[in-house]
């Protein structure tokens, strides 16, 4: 549930003294790894391995930025759409890192769905996370989500499928239906309604005691992998 997700994060930051940037780096890297497992480079239909990463204003967006950077290292060609940049100084550096790696930032998202379908192989939804407030989602995200609902290329949502009037617990039939979900730390309740083909978990660094305390019953990770398919 949203409360539990917040409690886990709080514990990691306060008791375990993980740094926020550290956690975001770990999650972003794991998300990129998960994407490469389901959509490896040779499997992409277009000539160029282009990926559109749509980043929201908060932590989920920052995770998207880190994910984009790692995808770049893995030789994908990410493009970022980051309309409302976080003022949080912790997250600003993630933007600079992407810019300095020559990852282009779109100045606007085409509303013409076919343009997106034609230009990109995948879309990564890093708009809203489990920390977002339920209720009203504002522009520009309402239009963005409306556009994303219509695209035909696969969408990968980070942690929770973004939606307007969204609820991390109930999910929302009005939201986008991603092809793939990467749950961070542990799946959120709305993931029970996930209908897509691929559900991955990115949480290997989670200390054993935290897993036990919250009764997460996480599956085992193979070898030295940082993601596991659920």
């Amino acid at each position, binding site marked *: 549930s949203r409360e539990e997700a917040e409690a886990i994060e709080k514990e990691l930051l306060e008791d375990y*003294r993980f740094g926020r940037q550290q956690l975001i780096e770990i999650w972003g890297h794991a998300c990129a790894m998960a994407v490469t497992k389901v959509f490896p480079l040779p499997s992409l239909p277009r000539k160029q391995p282009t990926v559109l990463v749509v980043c929201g204003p908060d932590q989920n967006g920052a995770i998207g930025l880190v994910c984009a950077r790692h995808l770049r290292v893995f030789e994908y060609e990410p493009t970022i759409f980051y309309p409302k940049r976080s003022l949080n100084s912790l997250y600003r550096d993630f933007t600079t890192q992407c810019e300095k790696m020559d990852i282009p930032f779109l100045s606007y998202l085409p509303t013409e769905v076919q343009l997106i379908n034609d230009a990109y192989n995948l879309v990564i939804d890093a708009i809203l996370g489990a920390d977002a407030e339920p209720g009203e989602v504002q522009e520009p995200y309402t239009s963005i989500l409306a556009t994303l609902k219509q695209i035909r290329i696969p969408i990968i949502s980070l942690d929770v499928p973004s939606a307007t009037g969204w609820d991390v617990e109930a999910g929302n039939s009005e939201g986008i239906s991603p092809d793939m979900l990467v749950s961070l730390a542990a799946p959120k309740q709305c993931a029970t309604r996930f209908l897509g083909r691929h559900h991955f978990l990115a949480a290997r660094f989670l*200390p054993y005691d935290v897993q036990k305390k919250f009764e997460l019953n996480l599956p085992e990770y193979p070898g030295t992998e940082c993601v596991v398919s659920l």
Partner: protein
Amino acid sequence: MSGLRALLGLGLLVSSGSRLAVGSGRCLARRWAPAGRWGAGQGRSSSSAMESAGRSGVKYLSQEEAQAIDQELFTEYKFSVDQLMELAGLSCATAIAKAYPPSSFTKSQPTVLIVCGPGNNGGDGLVCARHLKMFGYEPTIFYPKRPSKALFEGLTTQCQKMDIPFLSEFPAEAMLIDELYGLVVDAIFGFSFKGAVREPFGSILKTLEQVTIPIASIDIPSGWDVEKGNPDSIQPDMLISLTAPKKAAQHFAGRYHFLGGRFVPMALQKKYSLHLPPYPETDCVLQLA
């Protein structure tokens, strides 16, 4: 905890997704050409890519260059120390898992002693220890000089809360280390090291010179001059060079030389003519010949 160890009992440390064929060394230069993408037609397996890495002319950095690159990553590229330390520590743990899988340990438990120095190399060691624990090893840390900075305090807490023991004193005899542990990770000094070795690290290194179990050094074998090496100091079995190898690595005579720290942006690689060989698929480490 046994659950975590059980999963590593499989002893196999697969790189992610063998579906992806590794591109040749051209990959770096031809990144944007459609034909430069990975594909079945490339015809280079990951093992041959590994063999050629040593012959590919990878640059060995001077101490000054190493420091300049580091500085640029932080000031120009705005990476934070904790971000890069996390990736570096993960690389070290991954490389260790490849060279010394838990199943290869002759002792009943895959115990590892990690000796952390007073600076960033020590920090890399702390991150490495935490990941080794997650991979099913049983790390123990010796961290005598801890900087009072939030970064290091946080990393220490993370290890403590994961039940990684911290020794209060260093085993007095090499034989004791040989008996208790299967591997030592040397995270004492890194590429900023200059001048004389201060206590307690002098005595620690003297003891480590006598151990018979393998030593894996992070970035630079401690006690070595960053460019010239040191035949009188420890001779590790494994070296994990971070970002790019330093000149001292040319004197490395151990079995395993890995490259880690897969975060150097292309522009920076070009600027310093690093000629880094391509990493296989999504691996964060690469074995150099």
